[in-house]
Each structure stands twice: as structure tokens, then as C-alpha cells.
């Protein structure tokens, strides 16, 4: 996997360090973490043990409150549902809160192809959308951009602006305010949903999610199948666990709980509320050995604490999800050609330690590595196993390795063909193989 370099690497290191520091400050007492973890897991496990029942209740409650629920088997179906609603609402423009599920569906190109202007309203998403780039980090989509770059981008699209954070934010606000007020449809993600009351939680730090869900006459909330929990008190638990895990905060700046559209007596608020529930392979995942990934809250703890993610960055994981959770989820949702991601981990165990849901991410990466492969994957390791498990063969191999390693070390590094071995040697000196083994055949006492 390639490494981030230069300024982007520094930005990545600083951003993740800031999030790690926040987490350490606000949510690091192991007993507290464990207590949250147990209750949150219990809630999710109850839901996942009978998702059909709970989703039925969720749908029933949402519809009783005047909302509509749509189940989508895959991304294509979900996109069609969203597009239909937008068309019926006569939307020429939609505003959107940050949603990883919509990124997964690749919703924006579908809407744009239908002539609908999509405006991302999370400041970071707004910036990467203008730049035509994918989000860099699930919490900080534009964390790799300098204020100079952002000022240049804004100046090109809107009006000249100084590269000062306050001025940039003011301009973004001016642009977005107009869009919030004129859009016919607002689209948000869903952080969690309570089945017993039909309530969804939309958690943001900028208030943009609340604008999207209250100003336009139609609100579409898109959620992955796994985001539901049984009860409203579980929703409270997740609403406070998520910001704790991400930022060490007991609550986010904006927590919206939404049950259906605005009431008839309300002076404002959306007249229509649609909840789109996306499966896209999730019920298949639930049946298989990687079901535990469905507990993921998308808090990004595993990204921020992963030595590989913090070195390589999000885009190198090849799809919208990155870090350890992405390395597990991407092959499940996108197919076996992403299996190599399982090897992009030192299995150091830090992600499991930091996960607010206690997901065994390294265990699942290890399991993925064990999936059957070709003859190369079979024969070479078997040969290695024979050498390692027979004392005589092992000693012979060491005797042969002694001159071989010395000769290889004398060979200039550039003489090796490009590939992993050359790359390995660029960073290390080969060890010297001593003449004698540490373990002596006569046994016991060392000479």
C-alpha cells in the first residue's frame, strides 16, 4: 500500500493525533469504556438477533408518525428510490448532510446525471465536492487541504476570499444558507434508529444536518440496515457513545432525534419524511463469519489509532471505507478483489482495544487471510512449515542462509529487481546468520 507523503502526510498525522488526544482526554477509563461497550453490544446483538422483527416495528412506527419507509436491496435500488422522491418533489437542487451510506451508494453521480444539483453541506464534504475528490477521512473529509487551497477553490467557484478560517467559513455559510433555503429536498444519513419509537438520530458538529432535515419540505434519511437499535434508551446510549469514541465528548454539538415529518400544527419543518433502509449485502454479512462488523458505529477510532491508516491515509484503501473497519468491510461489500486489504495490518491489536463496540477487527482480518487461495498460497507455506517443523531441515536451511544472506547484503540494493524484496532491503540491513544455532543438539546446557 502506498504511503502518504509530504504535506498530506503531515496533515494526516496531525489530524489523527488531535483526535487521539481528544479521545484519550475524554474517554479512556477502561472501566467506563467497558461498561458502555457491554450495554451497546447487548442492544445491537438483540437487534441483530431478529432484525426482521425490529425493522418491522421501526417501519410501523415511522409510518404511524406520517413518514414513509423504503427498503432497498442494493445501492442501485436505493438510488432509484431517492431519485424518485426527488423527482416527485420537483427538486432541482438537494442539500445533503455527510453520510457514509450515501458515499457507499454513490448517490451523488446518480442525482447529478438526472439534472439535480447536489450540495454537500458538511464543510469538509463541501470542500472535497468542489475539488471533485473523495472524502479523505470519514470524520474530516477535507483534512488534507490547506486553507490556501480552500481559499483558491472558493475564489474560483464563488468570490475572492482571504485564506483565513473565519472568512472561509463565513463564505461557505453564505453560499450554503441560500441553498438550504431554496432546496426542495434535504438528504441526511442516520447514526442510529430506535425501533420502538421510530426515531432516528442525526449527529453532527456543524448544525448542517439539522438544516437539511428541517428547512426543505422533504427530508430523506438514508441508513444502513445495521444502524437500528431496539429502544429509545438504546438510541440515547449510541448518541452519547459515538461522540465519546470519536472525539472524547459526551455529546456532539448537534444531536437531532427525528420521528417522522413535522406535525400538522408545526409552523415549519418538512411535510414529508422518507427513511431509506439499505441492505446492500448486510443481511448476507450477518449470516457469515464477519457479522461482527455490523456492530460498527463509524466512529473512526480504529482509523485514528491504526499505524497503517495513519501512515497511508484513506484513499489508498481503494473505496469509501478505510482503516481496519474498511479493510474488513470493503471486501464484504465490493468483492474478493479487495481481499488484499486484509494484509494491510500489523495485527497489533490497537483497533480492537480502541473500538467502542469491542469488534475483533484483527481477528476478522486474520480470518480473511485464511480464506483459500491458489497453489502458491498452498505449496510455499507448506514447504516453509516442513523446514520450520523439522530440526534437521531447519539447521540445513540456516547453514545455507548464512552465505546467501552475506552475498545478498554485498549486492547493491539497486541490483535487485523492483518489488517487495528490494523495498524490504531499502529500509533494512539483512541480519548476519551465525555459524552456530542457539539450540544445541546435545541438549540442555549451553557451552
Amino acid at each position: 500500500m502506498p504511503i502518504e507523503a509530504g504535506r498530506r502526510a503531515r496533515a494526516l498525522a496531525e489530524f489523527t493525533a488531535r483526535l487521539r488526544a481528544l479521545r484519550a482526554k475524554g474517554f479512556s477509563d477502561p472501566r467506563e469504556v467497558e461498561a458502555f461497550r457491554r450495554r451497546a453490544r447487548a442492544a445491537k446483538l438483540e437487534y441483530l438477533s431478529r432484525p426482521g422483527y425490529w425493522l418491522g416495528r421501526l417501519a410501523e412506527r415511522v409510518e404511524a408518525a406520517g413518514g414513509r419507509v423504503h427498503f432497498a436491496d442494493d445501492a442501485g435500488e436505493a438510488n432509484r428510490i431517492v431519485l424518485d422522491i426527488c423527482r416527485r418533489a420537483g427538486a432541482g437542487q438537494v442539500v445533503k448532510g455527510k453520510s457514509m451510506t450515501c458515499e457507499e451508494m454513490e448517490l451523488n453521480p446518480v442525482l447529478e446525471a438526472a439534472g439535480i444539483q447536489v450540495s454537500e453541506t458538511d464543510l469538509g464534504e463541501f470542500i472535497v465536492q468542489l475539488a471533485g475528490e473523495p472524502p479523505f477521512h470519514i470524520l474530516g473529509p477535507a483534512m488534507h487541504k490547506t486553507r490556501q487551497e480552500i481559499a483558491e477553490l472558493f475564489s474560483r467557484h464563488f468570490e475572492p476570499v482571504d485564506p483565513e478560517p473565519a472568512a472561509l467559513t463565513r463564505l461557505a455559510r453564505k453560499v450554503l444558507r441560500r441553498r438550504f433555503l431554496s432546496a426542495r429536498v434535504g438528504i441526511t444519513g442516520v447514526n442510529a434508529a430506535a425501533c420502538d419509537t421510530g426515531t432516528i438520530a442525526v449527529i453532527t458538529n456543524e448544525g448542517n444536518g439539522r438544516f437539511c432535515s428541517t428547512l426543505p419540505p422533504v427530508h430523506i434519511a438514508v441508513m444502513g440496515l445495521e444502524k437500528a437499535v431496539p429502544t429509545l434508551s438504546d438510541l440515547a446510549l449510541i448518541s452519547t457513545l459515538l461522540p465519546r469514541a470519536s472525539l472524547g465528548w459526551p455529546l456532539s454539538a448537534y444531536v437531532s432525534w427525528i420521528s417522522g415529518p413535522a406535525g400538522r400544527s408545526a409552523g415549519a419543518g418538512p411535510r414529508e419524511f422518507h427513511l431509506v433502509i439499505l441492505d446492500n449485502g448486510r443481511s448476507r454479512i450477518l449470516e457469515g463469519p464477519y457479522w461482527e462488523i455490523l456492530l460498527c458505529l463509524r466512529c473512526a477510532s480504529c482509523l485514528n489509532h491504526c499505524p497503517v491508516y495513519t501512515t497511508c491515509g484513506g484513499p489508498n484503501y481503494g473505496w469509501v471505507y478505510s482503516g481496519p473497519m474498511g479493510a474488513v468491510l470493503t471486501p464484504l461489500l465490493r468483492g474478493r478483489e479487495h481481499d488484499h486489504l486484509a494484509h494491510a495490518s500489523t495485527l497489533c491489536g490497537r483497533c480492537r482495544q480502541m473500538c467502542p463496540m469491542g469488534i475483533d477487527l484483527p481477528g476478522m482480518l486474520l480470518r480473511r487471510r485464511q480464506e483459500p487461495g491458489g497453489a502458491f498460497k498452498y505449496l510455499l507455506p507448506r514447504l516453509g512449515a516442513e523446514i520450520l517443523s523439522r530440526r534437521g531441515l531447519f539447521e540445513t536451511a540456516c547453514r545455507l542462509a548464512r552465505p546467501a544472506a552475506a552475498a545478498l547484503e554485498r549486492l547493491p540494493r539497486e541490483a535487485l529487481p523492483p518489488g517487495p524484496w528490494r523495498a524490504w532491503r531499502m529500509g533494512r540491513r539483512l541480519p548476519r546468520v551465525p555459524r552456530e544455532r542457539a539450540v544445541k543438539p546435545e541438549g540442555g546446557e549451553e557451552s
Partner: protein
Amino acid sequence: MPPLPGEGEEKVKMPPPASNRYPRPAVFATCLVDALLPAVGRATLAVLRARGLEPWLPPRQVCCGQALYKAGHLPAARRVARAWVEAFRGAELIVSPSGSCVAHVRHALPELLSPWPELARRARLLAARTWELSQFLHRLLGVEGLEGVPAPAERFTYHPSCGLHRALGEDEAPYRLLDSLPGRRLELPRAEQCCGFGGPFAVTHPEVSARLLGDKLAAARSTGAEVLVVGDVGCFLHLSCGAARRGETMRIVHLAQALARGEGRG
């Protein structure tokens, strides 16, 4: 330590018990020490002898298969696991200078051998009595301080390996022992960060691994330490090879060497 049930008949290759109250520790050197790091093996024996024990190196011992397991090669890992259990047949106490290898023996071996119930049973017994060196000293023997052991350097720092400190959950033993030495142990910044070895990871992702290696060396250097102590043979070899390539002046010393005195430090 009284023999565990069903263990008596297996003492086929056990040397006669020594006079002290602990069974003779069988040292699981690990394949890396066996092939490349004899000094770490000598240090481990020296540390145990200094406690009045009579360690021995089971002569037919082999690798535990951790690297094959982590690379995802289950049949190969099983093959090595079987050989390991055979090689340590009858051992009443096993001590190893490598946390990740001990973690593999304790956590993976019994499960790997589950197709062979008798081997799995023996693996469970062996796993329960396999200890990482510093854990063995501090947790089992109750050693609080090591007297007469010189400091690894006037100023040194310690990298807590993921194998010992996460997989085995240790948070005290090596610190307690190192802090009893003269010289000053300096806190390593971002100590919990992996050094980038990861077994097969170092081969599949050599650049990322080397970058993490460089970060770890830089963090150690930033403390002003002359010596970086590492307690896992994989991480130790990885950091040593990287330090040699970079012309690093700071020395990398294995935990067993830091805890040994006299000729054991070699």
C-alpha cells in the same frame, strides 16, 4: 508447581528435577533466536540462572508457527504447531524471551490443534505453563528488582511490544524490572504505537513497515536515550536491521540482555 492431572506419564524427556522448588524452566528460544540471535538465547539462560534456576534448551525444539498463522496459512501453521507440542512434550515450565511467540502458544496453539484432541489437550497444558521472561520473573517468581545488574545505559528507553503488552495484556513486569536497574528509563513517546514489524506484514508491506520502523526509532531517539530496549524477538530484529541500515548510533538491546549480568549481556 505440582504436576497437572494426566501429565505424569508424559515426562519422557524431562531432565531430572533440580533441587530448587521450581521445575527446571525449558527455554523456548524461538526460531529467530535459534537462527539469528544466539546472544538473546544466552541472555535468557543467564537471567534464569541468576535466579538460582537451571534452565535447559529442549534440543528438538522448533518454531511455534506464528508467522505462518498470521499470514493466513492454516494447514502450515498446524503442521508447525504439532511439531512444537511434540518438541516440548513433558516440559513443566516454559519460558521464552518473546511476548508475541508466547501469545501465539497460549492463544492460538490449542485451537489450531483442535482436530487432534489429544494434541490439543497437551497444547492447552503447555500453553498454560508457557511464560514470557519478564512476566515469569515478576508475576510468577515475584521478582521486584534485579540486584547487581548494570544499567543497559545511563539513559535508556523501552518499547512495549504489542505481543507482550496487548496480546498478553502485560502492563507492569518489564517496567518494574527495568526500573530496578541503575540508569534512567525515559518514557517513550507514543509507546503504544506498533513498530511496524507484524511478521508477514514486514514482507507484504515493506515500505509502510519501514516507515513505522523509522517513526519508532525517531521516537526513541527523541528521548535522548542511548539504548532502546525491546522485549519481543521479532520487533527486536526488525528494529535492529532498520537501525543498522540507517547508521543509527542508538543501540537496540533485547530485554533479556538488559536484564542479564556479566557474560549474559553479550
